[in-house]
């Protein structure tokens, strides 16, 4: 076993326990009011991100709707239960009544949940139908999951490269490395070559894998999609604001499943065009020859991709 936990941490541990209680209380109330600004508090994040696309916003909204419905039902049911527990206790002299059913109540309590469910299913269906519509995409990017890195190919221009965990995180994450993750910027969420996409453009992703199943997930885009060897799944996104958005592989894919992050860099259209042109110049010739063939992931792997 390693020298764990590191000494610095023991002190920190005490501090953490100290502040934990107050923070828990704060956290609970923050969830109850679901303050939008709260997301800025990084380390005690409670809720889903509303994300940066229309779809992610819709997903977030539907999440909040069902969350609130559940909370309201919970308050009613647990409230009734709590009332019963305090009111009808033997120690307070309660005498049990004998009745054991009530047809009217049973019918109501069957019908009302059905109505609530319909109220939930309706908006969910709408969002889903919208998400499934990949028509009119302006560009297509092929994503291939490998153990344990991501391959990207810009289908129209032929630019392709591999994106894997950035060095600093990789060194730090080794068992017993003695390095402190707190000191690494974007620990485990940074890559050597991010995926770059243009802002304000409907981008279609076609997603597959070269060995086992992976899943491509950037929370701020509002969805994840499995990458399955031999199968193509498609999804799309349209990000208005330039920025850098991070995610991770979300399907167990072997020992380094935790270490294949995703970084998407959204650039303004013009900048993106420049970037793409720069990629095309040196890499175009070898990249064009190889077609993606999941039966031979090694071939795709071997393609000279590192720029």
């Amino acid at each position: 076993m390693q020298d764990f936990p590191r000494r610095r941490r023991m002190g920190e541990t005490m501090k953490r326990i100290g502040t934990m209680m107050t923070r828990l209380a704060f956290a609970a109330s923050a969830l109850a009011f679901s303050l939008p600004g709260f997301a800025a508090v990084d380390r005690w994040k409670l809720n889903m991100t509303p994300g940066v696309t229309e779809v992610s916003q819709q997903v977030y909204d539907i999440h909040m709707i069902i969350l609130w419905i559940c909370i309201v039902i919970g308050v009613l049911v647990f409230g009734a239960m709590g009332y019963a527990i305090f009111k009808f206790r033997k120690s307070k002299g309660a005498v049990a009544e004998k009745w054991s059913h009530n047809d009217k109540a049973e019918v109501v309590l069957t019908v009302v949940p059905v109505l609530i469910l319909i109220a939930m299913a309706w908006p969910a269906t709408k969002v889903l139908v919208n998400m499934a519509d990949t028509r009119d995409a302006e560009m297509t990017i092929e994503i291939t999951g490998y153990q344990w890195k991501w391959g990207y190919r810009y289908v129209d221009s032929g630019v392709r490269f591999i994106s894997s965990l950035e060095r600093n995180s990789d060194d730090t994450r080794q068992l017993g490395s003695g390095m402190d993750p707190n000191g690494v910027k974007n620990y485990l969420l940074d890559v050597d070559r991010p995926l770059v996409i243009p802002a304000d453009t409907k981008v279609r992703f076609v997603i597959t894998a070269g060995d086992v199943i992976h899943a491509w997930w950037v929370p701020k885009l509002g969805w994840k999609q499995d990458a399955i060897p031999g199968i193509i799944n498609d999804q799309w996104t349209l990000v208005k604001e330039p920025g850098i958005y991070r995610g991770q592989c979300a399907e167990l894919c072997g020992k380094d499943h935790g270490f294949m992050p995703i970084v998407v860099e959204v650039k303004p259209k013009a900048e993106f065009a420049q970037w793409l042109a720069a990629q095309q110049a040196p890499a175009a010739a070898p990249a064009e020859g190889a077609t993606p063939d999941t039966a031979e992931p090694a071939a795709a792997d071997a393609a000279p991709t590192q720029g």
Partner: protein
Amino acid sequence: MGHSETHDPNIYYVPHGSRWPIIATLALFTTMIGAALTVNKVAVGHYVLYAGLAGVVLMLFGWFGDVIRESVKGFYNRQVDISFRMGMIWFIFSEVMFFAAFFGALFYARMFSVPWLGGEGDGVLTHEFIWNGYSAAWPTNGPLKIGGTFETVGAWGLPFLNTLLLLSSGVTITIAHHALRAGERGKLLVFLGATIALGALFLYYQGVEYYHAYHELGLTLGSGIYGSTFFMLTGFHGMHVTLGTIMLIVIWFRCAKGHFSRDHHFGFEAVAWYWHFVDVVWLGLFLFVYVL
């Protein structure tokens, strides 16, 4: 302990302890360890496997022997009889569900995965980006032609003959059952014997068919999804026919020894049910594996 001396329906019967279950467990354990070692190519693996299987056979003789002796002595009352019946029915149901898994795989491949690879419906992109050039059809061994080219076994040759064999075996066993109920032992033995012969013949022709498939048609377990579903379905069915035939043989000897009376012959009925189940599964196979 046993309240065995009675037929009184108001008094329960509880069998005494038995050493067979624990022996059965050890035999099963040895078999499974042996099987695991064997597929992992450990040298002694198959010895362990065979030892385990021998243990299973021994256990079956011992356990059923006890049950038969107790039954013949008249220990079992009506309630026990019904418990046995329920046990057998639910066991057969579990077997049905086991086959359902493989039929499910067959239907899934035929209705979804193969058409999708060929670009139908939701498979447009899969086809366009990965398997361009593959055209979906059944039978298939997939876009990479796993296992090489092959031909299929025609439905109306041996498989059809086998269908007739199994169907008539269903008839003969029913005749045997009627004979048993009528107390005609000679007729019983003849028709039960005929059932066994039909079962054995079925297995023989299935063997011929497999030989033909492997050596002349190029159709093997490794022939892509077609070979996989074909051999797993027919293979598991064949194993069940084998088991059923062995059970029939045992029952034939028990009939010959006069174990069964006209209205007390659950052992016979259990085997008959099992045989009908094997029969019905075959009809499904014939239809979905061979004909369609």
